[in-house]
């Protein structure tokens, strides 16, 4: 035993200058390192944004927004349209069951079904999106014979956004004050009326945040769409099956590997549009959250 109890007590009672300096250094170095990690992440973000927006802005012009793609040149109108149609299609399919699941998890938490559904929804978040795409290809595109289509692409996107909407809807309903429900029941309303007429309006802004985030995720997805929506360089003629659909993320992936400059321009323009869209949605969603929980208090 090299260190006796007396030594330890001495060290505590009479802190040496050395020890104090050591602690000071540890303190500053600690904060310094933490600041550095933040700086690293921040500069990576700046780097990505700079690349996308500087090169993207250089590639963007009116023609990109108003013309369809012709080979490796032309515009992105077909892809912009496809991204919107698929994104909205995915939402139409995922919002009703998502909100229903959210309501169930929040309002009927007592039974066996709610915990099971919650766990499954959380696990579904973790299913890789390409697995969903593969599933969609074999079942809808090939076996059911829908071909590459809006229907197959929208269903694949809906499967991906469903658990997100479920989760945010549950949280939204849980945030509705209990007293409001009690007031409703006190007036003799049925559970359905209380939930749909009292809780739902209250929860709408928070649900909307979740829906917006789901839309952002859908817009940014590529892997589940490659084998379900396919690709088309023309505008949609309104068929749900048998008609493939273009979308911006595919244009990024397919065009950046082409050797021509015009193709690269399209890829950067598409990246600009996708990133801008996703960031704007994120900002809107965040602002909605701030409004509800108060500026600066957000944890």
């Amino acid at each position, binding site marked *: 035993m090299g260190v006796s109890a007396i030594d330890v007590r001495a060290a505590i009672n009479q802190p040496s200058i050395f020890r104090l300096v050591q602690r000071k250094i540890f303190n500053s170095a600690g904060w310094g390192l933490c600041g550095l990690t933040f700086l690293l992440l921040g500069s990576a973000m700046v780097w990505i944004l700079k690349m996308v927006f500087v090169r993207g802005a250089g590639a963007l012009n009116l023609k990109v927004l108003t013309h369809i793609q012709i*080979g490796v040149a032309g515009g992105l109108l077909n892809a912009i349209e496809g991204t919107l149609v698929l994104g*909205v299609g995915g939402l139409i399919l995922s919002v009703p069951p998502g909100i229903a699941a959210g309501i169930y998890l929040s309002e009927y938490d007592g039974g066996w079904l709610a915990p099971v559904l919650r766990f499954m929804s959380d696990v579904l978040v973790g299913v890789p999106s390409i697995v969903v795409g593969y599933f969609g290809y074999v079942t809808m595109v*090939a076996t059911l014979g829908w071909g*590459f289509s809006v229907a197959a692409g929208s269903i694949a996107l809906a499967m991906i956004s469903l658990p997100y909407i479920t989760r945010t809807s549950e949280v939204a309903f849980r945030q509705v004050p209990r007293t409001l429900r009690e007031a409703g029941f006190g007036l003799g309303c049925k559970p359905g009326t209380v939930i749909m007429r009292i809780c739902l309006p*209250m929860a709408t802004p928070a649900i909307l945040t979740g829906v917006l985030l789901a839309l952002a995720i859908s817009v940014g997805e590529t892997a589940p769409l490659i084998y379900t929506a396919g690709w088309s360089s023309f505008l949609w003629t309104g068929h749900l099956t048998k008609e*493939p659909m273009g979308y911006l993320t595919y244009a990024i992936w397919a065009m950046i*590997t082409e050797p021509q400059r015009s193709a690269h321009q399209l890829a950067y323009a598409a990246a600009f549009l996708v990133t801008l869209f996703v960031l704007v949605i994120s900002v809107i969603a965040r602002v909605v959250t701030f409004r509800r929980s108060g500026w600066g208090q957000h944890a």
Partner: protein
Amino acid sequence: MRFGRKSMEKKSNRSFRKGAVLALALAVAGAGSAFAAAQINILETGSSLLYPLFNLWVPSYAHMHPNVKITTQSTGSGTGISQSIAGIAQIGASDAYLSPAQMRMHSNMMNIPLAISSQMVNYNVPGLNYKHLNLSGPVLAGIYSGKIRNWNDEQIAKLNPGVKLPNHTIIPIHRTDGSGDTFIFTQYLSFSTPSWANSLAYGTSISWPAVPGGLGAVGNPGMVTALTGSPYSIAYIGVSYRQAIDQHHMGTAALENRDGKFVLLTPHTVSSAAAQMVPKTPQNEAVSLIFAPGPDSYPIINYEYAIVSKTQPSAETAAALREFFSWAIRGDGGNAPKYLNPVHFAPLPPSVVKLSQAQIDQIQ
């Protein structure tokens, strides 16, 4: 967390407005359907080697036939074959013909040659890219199977007397997607190197031997990018990407042909090879043009195929396809020099045009 009633109303109003905007977007998108009753949609997918040619064809053809909308997609010949068999794409573009097993199982599928293409072997060896290195099938087989690992290997040196080869590891690049380029490249290796034929053989996807550092790339464009970005690499690339190769000052190899001569890819060597092989084309046009005899023959040339089903879902689609293909193979149509020269393809000889037309007429 508590709202006044007013703010609550305001918020739900706003949400309805957002919903309305989204619905409007969808409605506008759907409105196109009303104007497009007679439109025929054709999806062309597959070979990245054929993709640049389709991109030249389609805008011109669209001028003549505004109601036929052809989407082009560069995905690899494997995709072209499998998606046209599945009926997902109407035109499967492929550098490879259907396998015998596929032909038997899907007797309604045809391979229709549209033009004659060829393949380059390119390398990125700093200091040597201005030269045309001599390479042979057995040496390439050695490189791609990992037996030849260094640029200054004596087997490469033997083919290139007087060239100072660098002492650097070779990075072989192969296609990871199912690819007609892989098909014709591995046919060249198989026909010239018995040990390759007996072990790996040929196909649109083969089990590439593990070469440490070897890269996989998607599509010809991916091959070009991987090649230009990786010094000391080597790649097989379709001739329609020749312009990109030249722009980046990559090296192009002279390949050993069946007669043991090292030949560069030129219109003359391609037509010499075609002259030797084209007469062997059978009725169904599934034939390899690889490793032609003759002193001037370039060893890797091939038909660019459209993989098409004889039975189309509608008479309109069938008619549109017949018309398009008939135009595409004609010397005053799609096989005109203004389309083929930019992609360095050779036109179909008259005898093959006849065979192709006979197949095209079967599309119903």
